[in-house]
């Protein structure tokens, strides 16, 4: 069965020159959709992406990356929404391309955040007047 998983890869300084994405595609047949990345020589880097393939191929790809001392996190969320800081104004709504931030109930008009739908474009960080959205990196 084909599944899509969101992965967060953190690179140690020494591994940033290895073409990991190439190997994920070529060797494990994964379809890769990169949300954001920072891969700079001489620094620690990160890569947030969706991978699509069989569960088995994804796990083999994850093992390959871990073999290169890359930390692979399958559950971490790169963008956080602080429900306490949110005033539920709705200024973020037209800037969120995937409706990860949305009005769940039209009667109360409260905002909710679905991290699974978030592609980490970071538009909400710039547009929230109350700083309710933040990024891990």
């Amino acid at each position, binding site marked *: 069965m084909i599944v899509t998983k969101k992965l967060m890869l953190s690179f140690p300084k020494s591994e940033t020159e290895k073409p990991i994405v190439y190997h994920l595609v070529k060797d494990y047949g994964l379809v890769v959709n990169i949300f954001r990345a920072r891969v700079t020589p001489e620094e620690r880097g990160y890569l947030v992406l969706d991978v699509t393939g069989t569960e088995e191929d994804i796990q083999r790809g994850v093992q390959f990356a871990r073999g290169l001392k890359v930390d692979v996190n399958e559950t971490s969320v790169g963008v956080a929404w602080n429900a306490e800081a949110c*005033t*539920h*104004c*709705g200024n973020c*709504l037209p800037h969120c391309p995937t409706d990860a931030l949305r009005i769940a109930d039209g009667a109360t*008009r409260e905002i909710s955040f679905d991290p699974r739908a978030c592609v980490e474009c970071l538009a909400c960080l710039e*547009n929230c*007047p*109350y700083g309710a959205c933040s990024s891990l990196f």
Partner: protein
Amino acid sequence: MKSYEEINAKIESKKAVVLTAEEIIGYVEKKGLEAAAKEVDVVTTATFGPMCSSGCFLNFGHSKPRIRMTQAWIDEVEAYCGIAAVDVYLGATQLRRNDPANLSYPGEFRFGGGHVIEKLVKGERLELHAQSYGTDEYPLRELRTWFDIGDLNQAIMVNPRNCYQNYNVAINCSERPLHTYLGLLKPNMQNLTYCSAGQLSPLLNDPLYRTIGIGTSVWLAGARGHVYAEGTQHAPTCARGANDVPTEGAGTLALTANMKEMKAKFVRGVSLVGYGVSLALGVGVPIPILDEETLLYTTVRDRDILAPVIDYSSDYPNRTGKVLCRLSYEELKRGEASVLGRTVEVGSLSSYATALEIAHLLKDEIRRGEFLLSRPSQPLPRVQSMKALAVRKKK
């Protein structure tokens, strides 16, 4: 017909019938206007959103030796000192000292007057830096100290303009992004922003100011406050619908209350990229149901309230007066609206969810007998237009 005295007597005996401006719509539909006007005593209205014309007077008490402050900064945000020795006025849109503003466009504006006011109400500790030229009786010339709101003699919020009766809907017809006080407007009409609580908003439920006037008791961020004057730019002479509801800005209120009684949730610093800082406030206004007419006005619905859509790339800055179209708040709340034949994504800077919470909080306070209504000592002007600023030579 009910009087203020009769309504307050019912509130004091905890028997007042109070509904929010949202609940009253269905209630009147079910019971009929005549019966509902006899039963209902108060309708609560509310709004929550950025209100730039806000600020506060603070009194620090006197240091030993004394200082007559001529310049003062609170957490690096300048407060106005051109009043008595240790009184200052801190404005919501004041930037932090050395903020680069829009030098590197668009500026971030992370912290300013509104954020200082939020920190004060939260009870957080802030730094005061004051300077003076020194006088015989006020010899101290510089002072640095830390304080919180409990250390102040007075912290009184005084807002020259809150609660705009209705408001522009901003859109961008140009080909570059605009950073405005109504948020980021993407080019080519990709999004628009409105800013009103619509059917819950105070002055939209009393469009001709029959009950809201100077002296009216209001709920200002949880504190008991009142309307102390017409708000600046109060312009009731304007286009109105058949229901008397303005289809443009119109009326405004000047509000004041004690900050020591406020709830931090309803006093929030605002950062708008490329524009500046501000303060978002929650306001609740009770409307006494004196007769069928006051009740009828409170049954206004989102679909009956129209807001003007204005191009903020040219028509707003150049004050051309052009309105692209008008949209109802019902249309705006659908999330997508039609402007000049195009479907446009909708955002809002006014929080209906928080306004609704405030309307319920105020309703509960009135039901518990804790919030009495006050008859205005003076009505708000009902005929008045807004003057423009003429840029002219002396002669």
